């Protein structure tokens, strides 16, 4: 359908002329409307929250590995957090809650959607910027106050929200049950504000992908990263408002005395769970799809081969986008929901393994008979595949509702979610950051340091999260402050200690990445336009690309994965290079970077 030009779309670019960038510093770097700058702003914000989330994880791991021992530096914390340096249950609960909230909403989601959605979409489809650059700027500047408000919870009376990142009512609705009042309100308000930011971002992305594609960039020539970001944006657009709505109801229950989730007045505690997970399951696919897309780009590049089964990869992304709406009940198997509904959700949940299987096997197909270069992004991308498979397969255990009876709310779930979120999303983010870093900052990251970081992360990551499966299989509940309270968990304490030590090492390893990231920004080797010899349009531009991106509108002649084509002497053909003698399409436009 996309190849039939209807001629109804006005299609103009504002960059036919030579661009003189005379914006002031503030317009250029602070209140910028340039999608590339906004992407980098999101990158800095979300890495900060990643660090904060990681620090909270260290607090939790200290308490779990060494219960009752004073936290190093713990005496510096206020009395409401620690007593004699020992973490208090109050602090533990808010650490778990804020760890989950920061990681999901302020680190991984903005990293994938805010950073790479912004940075890649216009560049990869050949557009000058987003469809609505000012709304795009507003999207970032709404996310920042949301983050600050969430953070502010730590500094108010009663401390931050402490009802888990899922904030189940009525615990989250009644301050007499937790002792947290303001913190819980901040949680709701912050997520409502963040929701506005996400919605502004997502309808921008969708409009951009639909209406601003360069000539020749038809739907089935879009890179998989763009397909994934497009479907993700659709999920954000439709899922986030449900969370906002639910958070508003919860906020009203907390503040003006409504009774949505209050059973005494006929409210339904389970309604919160339904609304939350109706948002929440699409949300977890929001957290993985962009990663899957970017990893597909990187693997094809590293293997110097076209993506295996491009069309089925696209269809699988779309299928995940659709099926993701029909499985939310698998988080509620033990909640007292209608058991027949449970059976339905079990079947739909199991079926969602099928598109993921398609993707996994196609990644294997892509490296099969390739010429694999192990550059740092490729290493992370391969780790993504092998770790996501572990996380995905552990999902199948929980999807089988009878067995979920046993492992629900145990560390088996914690293992699953870290395998998909760290092993999946975060490895994809490492891959993507290292891959597009040269484009973003015009400098290369140090590959040796990158490899050290990769291998240490891979090892410590598995040492940290793999044994959690066993904890779960022995019935170790999640969100418990002190496992030694239970006799059957006392024997497992050495495992907990081992996990904690690995976690500290894992955390420490991340500073190698941070150092590499920061040092390369200033001292890194100057990056060429196309360091990875990639076909994508962004690599035809200078590193970093100028404001307005393309000096002339590029014309796209083929898909992005034409590696090792017999039509070419080299093992790649950029998408905008015409086929000589083909004699069709618009005349060859000189890439701006030449």
């Amino acid at each position, binding site marked *: 359908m996309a190849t039939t030009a209807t001629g109804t779309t006005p299609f103009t670019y504002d960059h036919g002329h030579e661009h003189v960038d005379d914006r002031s510093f503030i317009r250029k770097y602070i209140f910028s409307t340039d999608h590339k700058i906004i992407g980098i702003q999101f990158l800095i914000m979300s890495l900060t929250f990643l660090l904060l989330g990681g620090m909270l994880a260290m607090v939790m791991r200290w308490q779990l590995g060494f219960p009752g021992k004073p936290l190093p530096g713990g005496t510096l914390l206020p009395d409401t957090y620690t007593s004699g340096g020992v973490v208090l249950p109050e602090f533990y609960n808010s650490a778990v809650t804020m760890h989950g909230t920061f990681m999901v909403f302020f680190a991984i989601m903005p990293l994938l959607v805010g950073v790479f959605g912004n940075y890649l979409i216009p560049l990869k489809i050949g557009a000058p910027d987003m469809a609505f650059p000012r709304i795009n700027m507003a999207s970032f500047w709404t996310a920042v106050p949301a983050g600050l408000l969430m953070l502010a919870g730590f500094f108010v009376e009663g401390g931050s929200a402490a009802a888990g990142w899922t904030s189940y009512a009525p615990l989250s609705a009644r301050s007499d049950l937790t002792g947290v009042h303001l913190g819980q309100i901040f949680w709701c308000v912050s997520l409502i504000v963040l929701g506005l930011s996400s919605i502004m971002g997502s309808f921008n992305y969708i409009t951009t992908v639909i209406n601003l594609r360069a000539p020749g960039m038809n739907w089935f020539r879009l890179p998989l990263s763009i397909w994934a970001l497009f479907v993700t944006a659709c999920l954000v657009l439709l899922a986030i408002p449900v969370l906002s709505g639910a958070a508003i109801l919860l906020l*009203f229950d907390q503040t003006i005395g409504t009774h949505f989730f209050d059973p005494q007045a006929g409210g339904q505690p389970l309604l919160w769970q339904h*609304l939350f997970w109706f948002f929440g399951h699409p949300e977890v696919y929001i957290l993985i799809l962009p990663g899957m897309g970017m990893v597909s780009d990187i693997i094809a590049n590293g293997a110097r081969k076209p993506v295996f089964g491009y069309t089925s990869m696209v269809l699988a992304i779309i299928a995940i986008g659709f099926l993701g709406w029909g499985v939310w009940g698998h988080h509620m198997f033990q909640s007292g929901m209608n058991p027949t509904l449970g059976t339905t959700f079990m079947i739909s949940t199991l079926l969602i393994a099928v598109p993921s299987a398609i993707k996994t096997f196609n990644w294997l197909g892509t490296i099969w008979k390739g010429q694999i270069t192990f550059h740092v992004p490729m290493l992370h991308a391969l780790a993504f595949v092998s770790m996501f498979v572990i996380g995905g397969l552990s999902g199948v255990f929980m999807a089988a509702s009878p067995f979920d009876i046993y492992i629900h709310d145990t560390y088996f779930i914690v293992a699953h979610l870290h395998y998909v979120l760290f092993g999946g999303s975060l490895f994809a983010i490492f891959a993507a950051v290292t891959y597009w870093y040269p484009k973003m900052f015009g400098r290369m990251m140090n590959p040796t340091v990158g490899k050290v970081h990769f291998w240490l992360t891979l090892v410590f990551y598995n040492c940290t999260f793999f044994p959690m499966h066993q904890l779960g299989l022995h019935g170790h509940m999640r969100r418990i402050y002190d496992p030694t309270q239970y006799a059957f968990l006392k024997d497992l304490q050495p495992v907990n200690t081992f996990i904690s030590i690995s976690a500290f090492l894992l955390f420490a390893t991340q500073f190698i990445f941070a150092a590499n990231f920061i040092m390369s920004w200033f001292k890194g080797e100057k990056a060429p336009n196309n360091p990875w010899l990639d076909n994508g349009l962004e690599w035809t531009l200078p590193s970093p690309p100028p404001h307005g991106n393309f000096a002339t509108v590029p014309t796209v002649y*083929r898909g992005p994965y034409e590696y090792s084509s017999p039509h070419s002497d080299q093992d790649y053909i950029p998408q905008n290079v015409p086929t000589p003698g083909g004699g069709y399409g618009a005349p060859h436009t000189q890439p701006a970077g030449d």
Partner: protein
Amino acid sequence: MAHAAAIHTEDVMLPPPAREAGAGVYTEKLGMWIFLGSEVMFFTALIGTYVILRFAHPSSWKNPGEVLNIPVTAVNTFLLICSSVTMVKAFAAVQDGLLRQLRLWLVATCIIGASFVGVQVYEYTHLIEKGFVPSEGLYGSTFYTMTGFHGFHVTMGVICMIYVTLKAFRGKYTQADHRGVEVIGLYWHFVDLVWIILFTIVYLI
């Protein structure tokens, strides 16, 4: 850069079209429609909650007219319908290049829209005086949340409408280019559409 790769044979792919088709509508309008999609989901959460809670606990609701003032709301509903027709008339006027009519219809829309909000405030104050407050069981909770968020949307709409009206007075819209009018119109009619549903399920059922 060494893009000058020697390429021997023809590419297997089809030639590119002159431009990509997109959605067949201009970008601002497409953007507004997509944004409305997310608004639909926001009201899905609220209206869905209402339907579910009402189904689960029917006895919390009073018969129509017992608590809520139907005549006042009926007038208000009529106002909103009127503001929709003035809005669409404004759009029709600018399509035909009748800029004076455009301004008149827009001003009318602003005034009627603002009156809707005014009547709603009046309705709220009376209900609260009568002791019907948001904490009054599920009935009060859902009533104020749903009508309140609708009212909030109308208020936002009025603010944007005033902005568009000012722009119209400054002559920014022409027969050739009047995207702003059409886009605000879409939002306005959507809010009207939501009210049509809310009026039925909140007041009449």
